[in-house]
């Protein structure tokens, strides 16, 4: 299954900036990015391997695709392509509810819902939310977020008020950023299989790995994740619970959204393993079990 991420946020919140970073950075993974409009993307012409009307293939293997009139047809078209992608990212339109788009992953067996990442413009989000024509649109976006990025903090006036206001709107972790400068690993996970953090993380965030030889009481894991809720932005793992010894569960947390799935028989893996990712100062407070 291919992880499926939706980037939401109102016009001007920084969605394109985030996508530009994603396409430029070398992540070692092939992203397919569905956008509303190539025009605003800053794609270096030297990195373009092929240009085919609605699609641009980059030298790093990533593909960029315009959505055109229908996300549904574009997405299915992408899944029918011969090449395989490690991750699919959709840029929601400025007025769309990104949560509804993320629902597509529940309908499509080839997709696995990853995160809904919503950017808000620190400069004018409260003004937008006070506009009666837009308030419900902005609120729906914020409420759909698994992870929220409060962007443009370098130029945002009265940041404290905006931060407090956002905390009342959502239980999702809020990351603050300039120019959508958040670690991509937090946004899009580490790699497809996800349980080992091979690459050295940038200094601004930290990862913790846990290994349990014995089956794990469900409560221990839940307590850990609950406890970590404010600090952990991502968790991924394979766990054997003591109340279901022969079953293999996957744990997948993005922001406030936790997914624990029974994936079949436990098999011969010796240990339960879990990797947590979070911002260093926050995660530093966690106690190792």
């Amino acid at each position, binding site marked *: 299954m291919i992880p499926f991420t939706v980037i939401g946020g109102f016009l001007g919140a920084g969605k394109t900036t985030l996508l530009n970073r994603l396409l430029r950075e070398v992540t070692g993974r092939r992203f397919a990015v569905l956008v509303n409009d190539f*025009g605003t993307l800053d794609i270096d012409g030297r990195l373009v391997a092929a240009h085919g009307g609605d699609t641009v293939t980059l030298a790093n293997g990533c593909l960029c695709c315009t959505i055109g*009139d229908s996300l*549904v047809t574009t997405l299915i078209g992408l899944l029918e392509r011969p090449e395989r992608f490690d991750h699919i990212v959709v840029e929601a*339109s*400025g*007025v769309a509810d990104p949560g509804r788009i993320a*629902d597509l992953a529940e*309908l499509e067996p080839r997709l696995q819902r990853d995160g809904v990442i919503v950017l808000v413009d620190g400069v004018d989000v409260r003004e937008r939310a006070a506009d009666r024509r*837009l308030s419900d649109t902005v609120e729906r976006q914020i409420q759909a977020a698994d992870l929220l990025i409060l962007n443009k903090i370098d130029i945002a006036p009265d940041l404290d008020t905006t931060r407090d206001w956002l905390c009342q709107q959502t239980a999702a972790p809020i990351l603050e950023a300039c120019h959508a400068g958040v670690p991509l690993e937090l946004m899009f996970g580490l790699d497809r299989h996800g349980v080992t953090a091979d690459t050295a993380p940038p200094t601004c965030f930290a990862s913790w790995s846990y290994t349990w030889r014995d089956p794990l009481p469900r409560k221990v894991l839940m307590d850990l994740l609950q406890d970590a809720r404010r600090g952990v932005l991502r968790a991924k793992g394979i766990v054997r619970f003591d109340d279901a010894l022969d079953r293999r569960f996957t744990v997948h947390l993005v922001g406030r959204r936790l997914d624990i799935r029974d994936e079949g028989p436990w098999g011969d893996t010796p240990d339960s393993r879990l990797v947590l990712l979070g911002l260093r100062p926050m995660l530093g407070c966690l106690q190792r079990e």
Partner: protein
Amino acid sequence: MSTIVYSARRILTMNPNQPSATHVAVRDGRILGAGTLDQLKGWGKFDLDERFRDKVILPGFVEGHSHAFEGGVWKFPYVGYFDRISPEGKRFKGLKSIEEVVAVLAAHEKMLAKDASLLAWGFDPIYFGGRRMDFRDLDKVSTERPVVVIHSNFHVANANSLVLGKAKITRDTNVHGIVKDAAGEPTGELQEMAAKYMAYRAAGVELSAILSDREAVWRFAKVAQLSGVTTATDLHNDLPDSTVEGYLQATSSAEFPIRILPAFAAGSVPPADGVPRLQALMKKNNERLRFQLVKIVTDGSIQGLSARMRWPGYYDGTPNGVWNIGPDDIDRILLAYHKAGFQVHIHTNGDEASEVGIEAVERALVAAPRWDHRHTLQHAQMADAGQFRRMKALGMCANLFANHLFYWGDIHYAKTLGPERAERMDACGTALATGVPFAIHCDAPVTPIGPLFTAWCAVNRLTASGRTLGEAEKISVPDALRAITLGAAYTLKLDEDLGSIDVGKRADFAILEDDPLQVAPEKLKDVGVWGTVLGGKVFEAPKA
């Protein structure tokens, strides 16, 4: 340079200097004159054609808001509640129960190839006393192949258990738009994104897609022509090269029975690309094909619970609808096309959407003053008197969705709008009183194309259950006939060329079996259409 003079029982011209005539002379595809035979003799030698002597001739009807997708859906069986006429002129009887729908589907299923999916359209359960279709009904049709039934609004669909199973939809699937029963099990009814996705997966059809391949364009033209239409819009199209090619091929034939105006979907590409694209397309215009319109879709639909409404919103408390294109983008896109000299058609169902559309035009006019832009609100179903006054002041037009009164009026009265706003919806009377130039439309395939029916709706304002919605908004038969001819032509900037029977205009006629000014107003929809004349060429409608 031959001249043909047609005689008729009566010719209704829409020309106030001569509202009624007995003969019309045609030369080179244009109207040479109308009047008595004596009055026309001065033009010289002519052939008298008397085939219409018992018929009544009107200007060819102009459908200002339809979609060529109407031609696309006829690829699939129709299972709606109301009778509907196919492009071949065959009348499909309305199906009055779910059992009837299942029986028709089962018969159709037997004719399909082994691996084909079964897709049908036009289903509308609102008249079945609360009973909804579920997967068990469709499993009676087949459990071997995907079965998807699309509702008449194109936003909801029903699927059989095979479709649900393939997508692994179970009671644990928590997705907006998957309807579940009291016990929490999915019923097979799918809404919005879920419906779109599943229909596409099951049958390769995008519910609201523009199926403007060559055959679909032909079917659309035929179904329009059957109802007396000589000019129709395809009012929202991305216009990819393949579609443009299909249009060019179809309209190059002298047998193609209508003039067609595709409206470029302004939201599909940035205006910086769209403006030159449309300008280039206009160079390809021919007698039957005209690129010149631009469309912006702002909100959803009232009955789809996605219209953007002002306070107090939906009558039953449903949250406000969604923007397809948000207010900032509407301003930006409208201004770009406005500055380039285009006329823009703005889809607005809810009154908040109408407000945003009107204000966008106002701002565009401040930024770039322009005369005779005729930017048009399409649907404008909830627009109130104040909004009509603003539209008048700004030089805007309206194209009102009169067919809604019949097809969804009861739902609007009881659930979506409540009595007061339902009674004043699609306010033709207010448009007339405030002087806003207006047309009325069908939005095919959402409702069937048929301007006389649409005029009947505006005149009688009857719902399907027989309730009169808004006595004060009724208009007269002559006003309604103007709205489906010259009025609609005005909203498309075609009124100098067609829309009335007047010297120099195109010889586009609707040939009727009866005189719409003589029949009782409540019989207007029953006036038969013999066929049409397009640019002097006669097209007899196939008889059912």
